C-alpha cells in the first residue's frame, strides 16, 4: 500500500468474542490510583 501504513495487526472486535473473563488486573491497581486507563494493561491470556 502506497498511501497508508497500518500499525497493528490485531482487530479489537475479535478480542470481544473470547474476552471478558475478568482475570486481568483491575485497572486502577496498576500505578496511579487516580485515573482509569486500560489500554496499557495486559491480557492474562496474551503470551
Amino acid at each position, binding site marked *: 500500500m502506497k498511501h497508508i*501504513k497500518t500499525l497493528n495487526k490485531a482487530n479489537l472486535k475479535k478480542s470481544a468474542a473470547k474476552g471478558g473473563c475478568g482475570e486481568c488486573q483491575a485497572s486502577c491497581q496498576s500505578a496511579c490510583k487516580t485515573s*482509569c486507563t486500560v489500554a*496499557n494493561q495486559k491480557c492474562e491470556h496474551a503470551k
Partner: protein
Amino acid sequence: MIHQYQLNGYNIVLDVNSGGVHVVDDITYEMIQMLTPPLRGACPKDVADRLSEKYTKQEIAEAYHDVYTLYENDILFSDDEYEQFSDMMVSSPVKAMCLHVAHDCNLRCSYCFASTGDFGEGRKLLDAETGKKAIDFLLVQSKDRRNLELDFFGGEPLMNFGVVKEIVAYARSKEKEYHKNFRFTITTNGMLLNDPVIDYINQEMSNVVLSIDGRKEVNDRVRVRCDGSGSYDSIVPKYQRLVEKRGQDQYYVRGTFTKYNLDFAKDVMHLHELGFDQVSVEPVVSDPKLPYALTEADLPRIFEEYETLARQLIEKRKKGEGFNFFHFMLDLDQGPCAIKRLRGCGCGNEYVAVTPDGDIYPCHQFVGMEEWKMGSVLDNTFDLKKKSYFAKANIYGKEGCKDCWAKFYCSGGCNANNLQYAGDVLRPHKLSCELEKKRLECAIMMKAAMADES
C-alpha cells in the same frame, strides 16, 4: 467512528471500533475527512472533484483504492458491533481490594486526597483481625475468579508493616484451599524503607509503587514532612536501592504534577536520570479553587508538555535508551480485550476499598464519603444495590462515553473524579477527558514514529 489528527508531522487515523491505527499521506488524510460510510468501489464524485484542485486523477484513484481496501478489511469506518456484549457489563465477582492498612501518614503532602492520610476520619491503623476478615471477604466474594489483587494502601502502609506481613501470610495460607492466586502490591512514600523492608517487598509484592514527584525542588515543595522539610533526599537513595535489588520491571516511581510544575516532562526525565525506567507522573485532580489545581486554562500548556515529553521519549527510544512512561504505554496488538475496555475501572463492582474500621467503599477515592459506604467486612454486610449501580458505570452508562473516540482506551474515566468534580459518577469530568485524549494521541503518535524507524 474514526478519529483523525495530525501530530509531530504524522497524519494519523484511528478506526475506533476495530482499533486499527493508520498512518496516511496528505491526500488520504484529506480524503478520509470528506468520506462518510458506507463506501462504494469508486471515490464519490464530489470528493474527487474537491481533491482534484490539488491532486491528479491517478493519485486520487490510488488513494481511494487503499482507503477502500481498509474499509473492506473492516479496519476503517468499521461498524460498532459491541452492543451485543453490553449484557456482559453486569455485576461481577469482587477480585481486587485496596486495603487501607494505615489511615495515618508520616508526610504532609499538600495535595493529598486522603487529607494527609486520615481521610478526614481520624488517624487509625488496621488491626490484623480486621485485615484477615477483609481477606475472608475477598476469598468468598471473588467466587470463581482465580487471580486476586490486594493493594496495601494508606496513608502510609509501612507505618503498619507488621500487620501487612501478617495479612500476607494469612492470605497465602488460604490460597490452596480456595484455589486462588494472590497478587500483592504496595504504595509507599518511601520514608520507612530499609533493607529488611525492601527485601520483604521485593519477595512478596508483585508490584510496588514508589511515590516521588520528580526534581528535588518540585518534590520538596509538596511532599514534605510534618516539620515542613522535604522528603527527596531521604527517599531517592531508598528507591534506588529497592529497584536495584528488585532486578525486574514490575514497579513504578510515581508522581503527581500540579500547576506548580507544568514543565513536568523535566520531572519525568529527572526520574529516569535517577535510574528508574518505570515512571508515572500524573495530573493532580483537585478542587479548581486550590492554588495548585489544574484548570481548563492550563490545558494548552499541558498539551504542549505532553508533546515535548513524547518527542523526548521517541528520541531516547531510537537511541535504545527508552523507558516506560505509564500514561503513554499502549499495546496496539495485545492490549486487553474489548469487553474489559468497555467495562470501566471496576470500582464498587470488581474492586473495593476496605478501611481500618473494616468499612467497605467502592474504591480508595470514595473512602470517607459516608453516603457511599457499601458495608463492612466485620459483619459481612455488602450493599448489592450499590454494587449493581457501579456495574453500570461503564461506557454504556456514562454521559457521552459511547460516542467518544477514546472509549476503548480510557474506559470511561474515574468515577470518583466524576462525582467530585462533575457532580455525578456517571458524568465524565471534562478536564480529565481532555488530558486522557491528549495522552492517547501522543501515545499513538509515538507508535507511528517508532514504526517509521523499522
